[in-house]
Every structure is written in structure tokens, then in C-alpha cells.
């Protein structure tokens, strides 16, 4: 792809970008949110039309007008959100729109399932072609997407943030699949924010910044620091700028808590100005614990003590009144009302406090929203901008603001930096430091091991609904945490 330019009304999304993909290589596309990675691959896969520049495919100039045309050329894309139909089977999804037909247009189911089995075996994955998509896990669904792409004789496979929802083990499996694809001469464009995995899976890397081409490097010739510098154009001395604050008194204590279907005998205490990291694999009960604290999980037995008083938290409203804030894992589904403005989102949990006799004090709303937009440096056209048009990092800052506006002194952060670019990540960490200094207690759930190690004052590891270990920040290591997370005593 040569000198690619793409403009949207009012914005230049890509400016003079060059990108070369070799046969059988894994080429990482790296850049902050809004750098133009998605736009570039969307042009390649026919979802967008380029404004200027040209695309050469096997040496010939081509014009890719529709996703269908891209598919016929052998270019497939797997988005973060899968395009699978939940109530159809694996085979039906793979052959959707091009089912093998037999006599009188009736679908030849036998052939369809047999062909699917061949593709899946070839990939080395154990999935029944007859299972319904909705019954599969995220990793398996992703494999179905890969299988679908292969059945289309794909020679260029684009993967957008393929590991964002996978567990460690699933990521390993994905990587071995990628390696076997390389052997079949499939070229892969791989978009990811996670630096550590790039070195494991990539051959070359191209960095974009603000819609501009920065550089293409051999992965083996570069380091994480180099890449970050190229991405953000500023030295990031510390990824994890943890400051040490002397913790104050205890604000929250959980005693022998059994709740929902998962949590068993949880004991936990957190003090003012402390960040407690909660590590564990998916399904270990971390989010369940957060939900129990926020009145969303039925408490079977045990006590939750806040500021020395035993409290019954029966609903999110009650939790908010007790000054608990819960930044949920899924920003778009649970954190934001995407169709509403920055201001409305920031003020949503505080509307109650900002109203008298049911009438909202609109001036106070504006002041509140303005304060956080300024303090957190949220980039937007104005307070009235709908949150759906913000970048991931800025969206996350809006969710943070929403909870800060409630003046909560216990904040639960569930995966606070998932899917966020490096620059915004550091800003969020700095914000967590500021909160610590103000005496806020933070429970941070994270699957990012480095984040847990880098930001927590204490680390708690969960497995199978129970707390299996607790480490002070200086004694914790990746190995120890993983060990406890796997339930090995």
C-alpha cells in the first residue's frame, strides 16, 4: 500500500501511509488509539475507500471497492467483535452465504459438516462442527473465524486485537495457530496494544502515529522502549509510575463473605490511600467479588464492613450512597451510555445529588463535567459530544470521571486499561496515584500481570472463587502470582 490517504469530513485519518506485507510474515500494526490502524486495514479489506494513494497486490495495482471483492482476492479480516451468528452451528457459520447445495437447491449438510471438520482438523482445533456458536467460548469463536477465513482461501488475514478477550492459555493456542498459518504462506496483519506479545508472535512491525507512517522495523532489531517512543513521541520513563503513599485507616473489610454462585469465604481489607490488585484467571471470581461489593450479587453469608460499620449493600444505589464506585470491565456495554453526551455520562450517578425536588441543577452539572474534562484532559469537541465518538482512552476517562464525580472513597476498577493506548494508560495510572494521595482506596482487578505488579501496593490472587494468596508489592513476582492463580498452593 503506497502513499495511502484517507479523509473523513473535517479529519485526515491517514496521511501518506506506506505499508508492505510479505508472503508468510506476521506484520504487527502498532499505534495508539486513533493512530489510523483500523482505518488502514478497513481500506485494505474494502470497508472504506481510500481518498488517494494506491494498493499493489502481487505487483498489480488493484482497486478494492467492497468487502466481498477483498474476500475474493483472499483478504479476510477478523474484527474484535466477531461476525458470527449465535444461533447457527459452526459449520453453518463457516459456509454462510455459500453453502454447498445438492439436489433442488437443498443444502448438502453432510458435505458442509465434513468440509468443516477437515478445516478444523487442519487448524488443529477441537471444536464440533455441529455446536452452536452461542455455546462456544470466546477463544473457540475466534478459531471459527480463523477457520472461516481459511475456507475462503485467504492469503492475507487481518486480526484486530485478537487477544484482548483471551486467557493466557488461549493466547498460547492462538499463537501456535498463527505459526501454522505462516507455514501455509498466509500473511498476517496483526493489530495489538500488548507490547509483550508482539515480540512473541511478530516478524516485522509498522508504527503509525496520528495517521502518519512512522517506521517499519524487524521485530528482532527493536525493543519495547523503542516502539513506545515511536508510538507516542515522548519518552515514557516509567510505564508504571507507582508512588508510595503511607496508607491510612481501614475503609473496607470483608469477613467470611460467601456470595453468588462463585465466591467462597472471602476475607479482605483495604486501607485509605492503598491500591490492592486482584489477580486471577478468567472465572476466578474477581468480577464476582466486585459485583458483590456493588450490590449486584446475592450475599449468602459473611459481612461487609465500611468505615467500621457493617453494611448491607442491596443495590448499586446503596453502594454509591456508601461512596463506592465501580468502573466496570466492559466500557461500552456497562460503563457508558454511548448515545449520551460527555456531560450526561459524567453526571449520571450524581444526578441524584445534583437535584432538588427532582429538578436537576444544570449549572452544577456543567461545572462538575467541566472540572473533570479539564482535570483528566479528556479530548472532545465539547461537553455535548456524544461519548460514542470518543477514542477508547477518552471514553475510559469519562467513566473514571463519572465515579470521581460521586466523590467515592472506595473505587473498584475492573480492567481499567483494557483496549487503551499506551499514552492514555499512563495518564490513568497517574490519576490512580493522585487518588491515592487523596486517600481513596482502590481495588484494581486486572489480567495484565505487569499492570498488577506495577501499580499495586498489595496483590491478592483469586482462584475458583477463593483468595489463594496475598503478596506485598515487593515480594510478588509473575511466577508466584501465576502459581497462585492456577490454584497450586
Amino acid at each position, binding site marked *: 500500500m503506497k502513499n495511502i490517504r484517507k479523509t473523513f469530513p473535517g479529519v485526515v485519518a491517514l496521511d501518506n501511509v506506506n505499508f508492505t506485507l510479505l508472503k508468510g510474515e506476521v506484520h504487527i500494526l502498532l499505534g495508539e488509539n486513533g493512530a489510523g490502524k483500523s482505518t488502514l486495514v478497513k481500506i485494505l479489506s474494502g470497508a472504506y475507500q481510500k481518498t488517494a494513494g494506491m494498493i499493489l497486490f502481487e505487483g498489480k495495482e488493484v482497486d478494492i471497492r467492497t468487502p466481498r471483492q477483498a474476500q475474493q482476492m483472499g483478504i479476510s479480516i477478523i474484527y474484535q467483535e466477531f461476525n458470527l451468528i449465535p444461533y447457527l452451528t459452526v459449520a453453518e457459520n463457516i459456509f454462510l452465504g455459500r453453502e454447498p447445495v445438492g439436489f433442488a437447491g437443498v443444502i448438502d449438510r453432510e458435505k458442509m459438516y465434513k468440509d468443516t471438520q477437515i478445516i478444523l482438523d487442519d487448524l488443529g482445533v477441537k471444536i464440533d462442527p455441529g455446536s452452536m456458536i452461542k455455546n462456544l467460548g470466546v477463544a473457540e469463536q475466534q478459531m471459527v473465524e480463523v477457520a472461516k477465513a481459511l475456507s475462503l482461501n485467504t492469503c492475507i488475514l487481518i486480526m484486530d486485537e485478537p487477544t484482548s478477550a483471551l486467557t493466557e492459555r488461549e493466547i498460547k493456542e492462538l499463537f501456535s495457530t498463527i505459526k501454522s498459518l505462516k507455514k501455509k504462506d498466509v500473511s498476517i496483519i496483526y493489530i495489538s496494544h500488548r507490547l509483550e506479545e508482539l515480540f512473541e508472535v511478530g516478524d516485522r512491525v509498522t508504527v503509525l502515529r496520528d495517521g502518519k507512517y512512522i517506521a517499519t522495523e524487524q521485530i528482532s532489531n527493536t525493543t519495547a522502549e523503542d516502539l513506545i517512543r515511536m508510538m507516542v513521541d515522548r519518552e515514557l520513563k516509567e510505564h508504571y509510575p507507582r508512588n508510595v503513599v503511607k496508607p491510612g485507616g481501614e475503609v473496607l473489610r470483608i469477613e467470611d463473605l460467601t456470595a453468588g454462585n462463585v465466591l467462597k469465604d472471602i476475607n479482605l481489607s483495604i486501607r485509605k490511600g492503598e491500591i490492592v490488585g486482584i489477580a486471577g484467571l478468567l472465572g476466578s471470581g474477581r468480577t464476582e467479588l466486585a459485583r458483590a461489593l456493588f450490590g449486584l450479587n446475592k450475599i449468602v453469608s459473611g459481612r461487609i464492613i465500611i468505615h467500621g460499620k457493617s453494611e448491607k449493600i442491596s*443495590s*448499586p444505589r446503596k453502594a454509591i450512597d456508601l461512596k463506592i464506585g465501580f468502573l466496570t470491565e466492559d466500557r461500552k456495554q*456497562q460503563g457508558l*451510555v454511548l448515545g449520551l453526551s460527555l456531560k450526561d455520562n459524567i453526571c449520571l*450517578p450524581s444526578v*441524584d445529588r445534583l437535584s432538588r425536588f*427532582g*429538578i436537576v441543577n444544570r449549572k452544577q452539572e456543567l461545572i462538575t463535567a467541566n472540572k473533570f474534562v479539564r482535570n483528566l484532559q479528556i479530548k472532545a469537541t465539547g461537553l455535548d459530544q456524544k461519548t460514542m465518538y470518543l477514542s477508547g482512552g477518552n471514553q475510559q476517562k469519562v467513566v473514571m470521571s463519572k465515579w470521581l464525580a460521586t466523590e467515592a472513597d472506595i473505587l473498584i476498577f475492573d480492567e481499567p486499561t483494557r483496549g487503551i493506548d499506551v499514552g492514555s494508560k499512563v495518564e490513568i495510572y497517574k490519576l490512580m496515584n493522585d487518588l491515592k494521595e487523596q486517600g481513596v482506596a482502590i481495588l484494581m482487578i486486572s489480567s495484565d500481570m505487569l499492570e498488577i505488579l506495577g501499580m499495586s501496593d498489595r496483590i491478592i490472587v483469586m482462584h475458583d472463587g477463593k483468595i489463594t494468596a496475598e503478596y506485598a508489592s515487593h515480594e510478588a513476582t509473575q511466577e508466584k502470582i501465576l502459581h497462585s492463580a492456577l490454584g497450586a498452593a
Partner: protein
Amino acid sequence: MMGKEFILHNARQFGTLIGLFILCIILWILTPHFLTVSNLLNITQQTAINAIIAVGMTFVIITAGIDLSVGSIMAFSGVVMASVLNAGLPIPLAILIGIGVGILCGLVNGLLITYGNLPPFISTLGMMSVARGAALLYTNGRPISGFTGDFRFLAVGEVLSIPVPVLVMIIVYVIAHLLLTRTKLGRYTYAIGGNEEAAMLSGINVRFYKTAVYGLCGMMSGLAAIILTARLNSAQPIAGIMYELDAIAATVIGGTSLMGGEGRISGTLIGALIMGVLRNGLNLLGVSSFIQQTVIGAVIIIAVLVDMALKKQRG
């Protein structure tokens, strides 16, 4: 907020308003009688009932719901009110009872949706039939008529030379606009429609506010019943058939999305006026009622198509 920013912020409303003006100009050219004070007053008066019901519908649709029972509830509260009026109860009390019946039916809808977890389509479809049946049962299928002049004033009277129904409509719209833009109820209505889960996680009592919104919608049906009964000088158990569709049409033409989370009360007023002007104009032109039906249906479809195309362009 004035000038350019104001226009940009309300672009959708201005678009619908321009549509209304164009429609008026075409009708003015085609029939000179259209642009007379008496005819315009006539239009607003005829629009009032649909416009009032559409207010409730707008709230419901912003929460991503729908209410199919508004016409039936209107008929039921109309006949109940008429019967207590004829039994000799004072007018204000009868009116309160009529509105109360509307609110009750609406709250039942709301409770079925929030606590019974029924889809709004189903519970209000059921209520549509239940309320209609109740109205027929209550009256044995016969209309109730013969009211005092004082009651008739509510339809034919004028205050400061504005017809009472128009005045009621204006008051309802001002209050509804303030409710939607300046109160907790309004904020939560948008939040629930935009993302119910996020609203719940922000500490909003979703069930309470959703039920309240359906109660409000029922209240609007009760209010409309008063005006209709006074105008016809009779409460009909079969009144208001298909009114739900007119109310939905006014709301949707006014730019409220059936997906919920967005919409303006001012848009709904313009939507209701477009429907009213269209009916009136086609009548003046002597177009047969069969063709009228078809034209109005087509206008609804075109309005939404244009809206979607514009939205897509704006990104």
C-alpha cells in the same frame, strides 16, 4: 445558547420544521382556504389529542419501549369519567378519576414490563385488548353522552381567544419539555433507553423510573380522553382505535429513535402537526379517505428514510 450553535444542536428539529413549512406552502398554493386563521386553529385543535398522546409515547419510546395500548386506555378512561360525570360528580373530580384510570392502566403496563420482565410490545398489546374489553363491558358497548355546557367548555371554549384543547396541548408540551430536559426523570429516561445496564450500574432504579414513564403515558391517554369526550359530547367505548399508530408516527417523524435513548419533545409536536396538516390539507383538496391513508403511511416511511440517510451522512 443562541445562533449557530443552537441551530446545530437542534438540526434534526429544524429539519422537521422545514418539512412542515414546505408542506404548508404546497397546501397554500394548492388551496387558498388552507392558510386562514380559522383553518389553522382547526388543525391545531384536531392535532391536540394525538399530540397529547404522543407526549407519553415519546417518553416511552425514549426508554426503548413502545405502548400499543394508548387508544384503548383513552377509551376506557373516557367512559369511566363520563359515567361518574353523569352520576352527578363535580367536573374536577370526574376529570381526576378519568386521568387516574389512565395512570393506573399505564402503571400496570409498567409493572408487567419491569417486574414481569415482559417485552413492552407484549404487555401493551395485552393491555390494548384488556382496556378495550373493559370499556365495552363497562358501557355494554353503548356510548355515554349528554354533558353540561361547563364540561363541553373543555373542547369548545376559548381562553384569551385560544381554544381550550390547544391551550392544554401547549401546557402539556411545556411541562413535558421541562420534565425531559431538566429533571431526574428526564435524565434517567434517556439513560435507560440508551443503555439500561449502564443506567442500572450508575445507581438508577430502572424499574421505578420505567414504571413511572408508562404511568405518565397512561396519564396522557386519560388527558386526551377528557378533550375527546368533551368534543364529541359523548364517551365512546370504541374511541381511539388506531390512535397508537398515529402517536408512534408523530413521535418517529419528530426524530425519536425507536432504538431508544434519543428524541425531543419539540420534535414530536412538529411530527403531530405534520400529521394534522396532512390530514387537513388532503381533506380540503377533497382527496378520498382511502388515498389519505396511503399518503400518510408513505409520509411516515419517507420521513424515517430521510432521517436515517441524514444520520448516516453525519456519521
